[in-house]
């Protein structure tokens, strides 16, 4: 009987376990994790923080009988991995052997490295324990300072505002998320944040966290201002948890390097999800997606390959849907303005491929409430950003994924007319046909 060991109980590890069970009904499957809560919706933490759902809603399969995978859960931290003996060492269950192993250890928040970062009152939004900690502090928190320029930071801002806390939001650049959003797009988000009485500080970083009796009392900013606060919430990026792989001598860069079969440099060890830096034979690059659905898909593909089948991970166009300050935003494919030079880490809810903007032309149209930006290549659409009204996002994703030839309408697409969205929709219906109401 084959023994599969999966390290990590996030979406990737869980999807791998689910798939392995369907492929091999009798195999022994071990899910090992130091997260005491097992599998839950990590992106859902933002809505738990804002009070839109209760904690128990984060768990998908809490109802008995809905999904019984016959998996053994091992709670504990994996302290070492030994590829030659096919074993791992845990701090709770000692040594465990494996036939095939999946590293699905994910990524964790990058700590803020400034004086005072060890004070009580510093929080992040990595896992359920972090969210519980923030909620337990709400009662005694009047003002918070949030730092970071991506999805998690804005989720922290919205969550804390929903809990009735006054929020100062520090942005390192001229506007919010400059390596993905343009000035107009960011302006839409910032208007909503200001409407919710968030105090925005552009071109501002934390220089020092000021403490009083071991607790956060304020921050000193790069502008020389002192902002009084009881909490500092950090969402400055995530870093792949590669320590185990590095200790085992596996090849790593920003993540654990894997080929298109999600195999690492060591035999019988695979990696997937936020920890995996996946080689793409088409582009020749290896990149990381910190996204939920690709994480699920990678878990499935890894399972097929662990079970001895040969399945290539086909990278589809990276897509994410976000609710940024109440504005529904869909990001599809390459749309960014290049890598943020000061950014070393990836961001949760983000893909490195968004920042690989090819040399093409962007076409825009929009109102105060909705915005559409298309990245138009020679013969096909390469990327899009849809904010506000989302009717057009599914047709566009479909057109990008199936590489629909847009050359007959390319000229019109470049005109940035107010009817741009309708024009794309009409073309999609004409080429594919749409059946929804």
């Amino acid at each position, binding site marked *: 009987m084959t023994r599969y060991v999966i390290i990590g109980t996030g979406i990737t590890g869980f999807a791998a376990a689910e798939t392995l069970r369907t492929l091999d009904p009798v195999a022994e499957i071990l899910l090992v994790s130091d997260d005491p809560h097992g599998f839950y919706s990590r992106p859902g933490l933002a809505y738990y923080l804002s009070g839109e*759902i209760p904690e128990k809603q984060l768990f*998908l399969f809490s109802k008995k009988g809905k999904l019984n995978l016959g998996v053994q859960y091992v709670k504990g931290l994996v302290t070492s991995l030994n590829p030659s003996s096919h074993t791992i060492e845990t701090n709770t269950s000692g040594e465990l052997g494996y036939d095939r192993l999946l590293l699905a250890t994910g990524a964790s928040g990058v700590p803020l490295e400034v004086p005072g970062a060890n004070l009580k009152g510093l929080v992040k939004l990595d896992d359920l324990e972090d969210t519980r900690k923030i909620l337990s502090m709400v009662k005694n928190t009047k003002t918070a300072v949030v730092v970071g320029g991506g999805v998690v930071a804005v989720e922290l801002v919205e969550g804390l505002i929903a809990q009735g806390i006054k929020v100062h939001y520090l942005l390192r650049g001229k506007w919010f998320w400059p390596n993905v959003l343009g000035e107009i797009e960011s302006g839409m988000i910032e208007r909503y944040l200001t409407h919710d009485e968030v105090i925005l500080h552009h071109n501002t970083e934390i220089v020092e966290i000021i403490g009083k009796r071991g607790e956060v009392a304020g921050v000193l900013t790069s502008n020389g201002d002192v902002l009084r606060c009881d909490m500092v919430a950090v969402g400055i990026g995530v870093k792949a948890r590669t320590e185990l792989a590095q200790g085992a001598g596996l090849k790593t860069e920003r993540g654990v390097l894997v080929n298109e079969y999600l195999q690492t440099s060591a035999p019988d060890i695979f990696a997937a999800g936020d920890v995996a830096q996946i080689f793409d034979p088409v582009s020749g690059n290896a990149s990381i997606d910190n996204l939920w659905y690709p994480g699920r898909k990678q878990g499935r593909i890894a399972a097929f390959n662990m079970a001895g089948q040969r399945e290539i991970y086909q990278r589809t166009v990276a897509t994410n*849907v976000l609710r940024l300050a109440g504005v529904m935003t869909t990001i599809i494919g390459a749309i960014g303005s290049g890598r943020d030079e000061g950014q070393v880490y990836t961001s949760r809810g983000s893909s490195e491929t968004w920042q690989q903007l090819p040399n093409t032309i962007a076409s825009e149209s929009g109102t105060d409430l909705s915005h559409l930006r298309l990245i138009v290549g020679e013969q096909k659409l390469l990327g899009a950003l849809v904010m506000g009204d989302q009717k057009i996002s599914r047709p566009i994703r479909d057109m990008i994924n199936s590489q629909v030839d847009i050359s007959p309408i390319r000229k019109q697409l470049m005109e940035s007319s107010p009817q741009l969205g309708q024009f794309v929709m009409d073309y999609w219906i004409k080429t594919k046909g749409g059946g929804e109401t």
Partner: protein
Amino acid sequence: MTFPLSSESKHVKTLVTGHVVPEPERCIQCGICSFNCPISIDVRYYAWLGEYVEDSYCLTCGECVERCPRGVLHFEKTELFIGRKE
């Protein structure tokens, strides 16, 4: 039992001709849909499976469609009524 629906509601039409369809690629399984369903249908589970909400009790009230923060759910016409004049 009657449900108070405005005669102008778009949902009146949907009640008889549509069902809720998920787009799993957008779903992060937060469960807001299931939590807000007035009759406790586990909409999220359908999204996990990538299947339309096939529950004879579904009111197609649109609560899950409206509440989803990621735009996962939309209405589609059911095949049952194809060919029938609206």
